[in-house]
């Protein structure tokens, strides 16, 4: 199954946000999207996931979803999007409750997803009791439990502190390498982009266009935090982005 963006354009009122974005995500491939603040990365992801209708172009699914996938295109959110009134297990169970599954099977699926994210001991905890890292692990468990084909991740680590981010990055690379999910990974952090992605889409300022696409051929499993080659790739992207990042930073919101 491939996820294809076909000449997607979008805007809000008079504000043009995205313009003519085309790319595709193949089976098991991670595409990172980077770009300055407000260039429409989150909007693009919402369009890809069917949460927003684009003004122009369209998002397509090519091929069929793998059998057993309950929710082929699944989001992971920046702010975790956990229901605070449900326990960890309840939050994961939420997305299975309206599916035709036997209660026992559902329980088993939830327990399996929690175990895979190291959350087995936290099944009955409420989100507020968890650290940020654990909360995002719940978000990942919830995404895994529906057996997705493509994960759409909107800055999944940016709400975490640097050390926790490091820990989750390890978990995430492990997961993506083991499961062969496809994914679109939006981030500001070029270090994350070069560690996870096969291709990096560098976007321009609003209205966001694809400025360049950087390919990184090395398998994810072999990449590590202190890798000089990756650092150089990140540095190169940064040089190309810097000016636009400065401009985005100095932009005044009207109001």
């Amino acid at each position, binding site marked *: 199954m491939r996820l294809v963006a076909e000449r997607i354009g979008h805007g809000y009122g008079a504000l043009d946000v995205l313009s003519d974005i085309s790319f595709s995500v193949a089976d098991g491939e991670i595409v990172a999207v980077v770009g300055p603040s407000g260039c429409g990365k989150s909007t693009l992801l*919402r369009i890809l*996931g*069917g*949460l927003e209708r684009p003004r122009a172009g369209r998002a397509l699914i090519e091929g069929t979803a793998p059998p057993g996938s*309950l*929710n082929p*295109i*699944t*989001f992971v*959110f920046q*702010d975790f*999007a956990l*229901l*605070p*009134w*449900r326990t960890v297990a309840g939050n994961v169970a*939420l*997305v299975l*409750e*309206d599916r035709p599954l036997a209660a026992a099977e559902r329980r088993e699926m939830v327990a399996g997803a929690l175990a895979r994210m190291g959350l087995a001991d936290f099944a009955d905890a*409420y*989100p*507020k009791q968890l650290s940020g890292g654990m909360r995002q692990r719940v978000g990942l468990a*919830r995404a895994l439990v*529906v057996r997705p084909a493509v994960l759409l991740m909107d800055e999944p680590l940016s709400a975490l502190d640097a050390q926790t981010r490091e820990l989750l990055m390890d978990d995430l690379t492990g997961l993506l390498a083991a499961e062969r999910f496809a994914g679109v990974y939006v981030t500001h952090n070029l270090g994350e982009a070069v560690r996870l992605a096969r291709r990096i889409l560098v976007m321009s300022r609003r209205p966001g266009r694809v400025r360049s696409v950087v390919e990184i051929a090395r398998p994810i499993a072999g990449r590590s935090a202190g890798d000089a080659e990756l650092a150089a790739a990140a540095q190169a992207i940064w040089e190309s982005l810097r000016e636009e990042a400065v401009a985005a930073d100095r932009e005044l919101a009207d109001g």
Partner: protein
Amino acid sequence: MAEPVPFRGGGFQPRARRLVAVATLAVLVAGWSLASRAGWVSPIALPPPEEVATALVRLARSGELARHLAASLSRLVSGFALGAGAGVVVGLAIGLVSLARSAGMPVIAALFPIPKIALLPLFVVWFGIGEASKVATIAFGAFFPMAVATYGGVDGVDRTLIRMAQSFGLPTLSIVRKVVLPGALPAMLSGTRIAAAIAIILIVAAEMIGANEGIGAFILAAGNLMQTDQLVAGVVVLSVLGLTVSGLIGAAESVLLRWRR
């Protein structure tokens, strides 16, 4: 040559101390009693607290208090249930459906500021002089704050939670039940607090029409007869009722909203 870093923090965190609170109330009552006994306050203007206490005890002993409370509480409960129930339904509709919002908001805005006492003569014509008009007065009072709080609560539900639920393909009804309603619950509970306070306040107005029993009727009769000791006793009962209901809602909150802070 080394001196400590000057302290410049602290403060701006006043704490309510229970002891001082109790002491304050005690001092107030004692001062009131003293002023009455010294003759600074005429018993018509404010009966001494002992007389109020005596009136209360007499009221309780004779079973009158129970009778009046029972009458008022039954009106309160049914009026509140009707009004608040309708308020939740209308509030949900306004919070979820564009048409209901467009139609409901202006009507609520126009009717909310109308004092219920002004409508009493019409209520009597509409609902008669029996229980119905009293229950309707209370229901009418409880309806608006509940409706406003409910749609405010629905508006306040984190949209990313709703988008999350949609992105996992949850059906709309499930989203309303599992995301919107629990998310609006805190606001609805504080709406309940206000609606209950208004319902208690309206007891007196509701019992202005043709009521022989009820705390409100009792207070009105005492006021008409200038029996200030009984009047204040009745007011004390209402105040205690208000505090009790507010305490109950607080307890409900701490159970239902365990997941918060």
